[in-house]
């Protein structure tokens, strides 16, 4: 499904930039699962996944003609995904100021059966304890992004990415408790 050759991906992106709907559709189909995984890692909420993934791809469709380097498509797409998720988390935080609902009302636990295994539950719990920026970092690494690409996505240096990644991994390990019970 996913274009493995960088040239094939660049061609697909160029076709999409010319407004070829088949190419756009192919890009969405190829990346929808990865973007969904990224969104889930960022928000820890399965009910946000489709809505946020849709927002990411709508932004992609609307802005793809402004992407100068088609080969950089993946980094660009995950930057869109990261920004969309962080915006959503900020909005959520802002809403909490104006609405009389507490955090516990927004973070309703996943319904039974939604989370299948202890490991996944523990990972979700551990991710939820991290700062959104650290979650993004770990999710980008899981996406196979290199340190240089992550540095570009986050507009920072490779050294800073390495240091932050080290700290984020330590925090994740601290909070990762497979026997944790919600």
């Amino acid at each position, binding site marked *: 499904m996913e274009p493995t050759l960088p040239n094939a991906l660049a061609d697909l992106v160029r076709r999409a930039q010319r407004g070829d709907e088949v190419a756009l559709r192919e890009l969405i189909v190829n990346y929808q*699962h990865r973007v969904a995984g990224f969104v889930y890692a960022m928000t820890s909420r399965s009910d946000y996944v489709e809505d946020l993934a849709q927002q990411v791809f709508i932004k992609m469709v609307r802005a793809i003609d402004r992407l100068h380097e088609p080969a950089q498509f993946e980094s660009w797409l995950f930057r869109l995904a990261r920004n969309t998720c962080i915006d959503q988390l900020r909005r959520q935080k802002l809403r909490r100021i104006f609405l009389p609902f507490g955090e516990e009302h927004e973070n309703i636990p996943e319904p039974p059966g939604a989370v299948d295994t202890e490991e996944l539950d523990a990972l979700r719990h551990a991710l939820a304890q991290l700062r959104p920026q650290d979650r993004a970092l770990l999710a980008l690494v899981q996406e196979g992004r290199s340190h240089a690409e992550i540095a570009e996505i986050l507009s920072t240096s490779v050294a800073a990415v390495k240091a932050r990644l080290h700290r984020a991994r330590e925090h994740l390990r601290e909070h990762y408790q497979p026997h944790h019970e919600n």
Partner: protein
Amino acid sequence: MKTEDQAWQALRQHAAKQLPGDFAGRVLRAAAGPQPEAWHQLQVQASAQLRPGFAERVLRAARDFNVPSLFNQFALGAVTVAVCLVAVVAVHSRSARVDEQIALAGWKQLAMEAQEIDAGL
């Protein structure tokens, strides 16, 4: 066996019963941190949230999505300001009219009372 030793043994047994099954395995898994399998499960779980026809829905939504132009945004702002001004003027004139009527009624009352006093004299 001494009573104290028996007490310690009972305590150890009670404590041991508090540990969940496969305690060692859980400790080792926690110490190792999340394994690729957990990340994979997260990916699978997330993918399952996308309903069939996701790409078509995105393309349709992107087609229907219109960002208002700068002119439209300005026009909307101007209309909002105008509506607010009209509302303020209307409320102000209404309250001024009511105040005027109250004052007029007060003066009429005063004039009648003055006429009554003049007539009495």
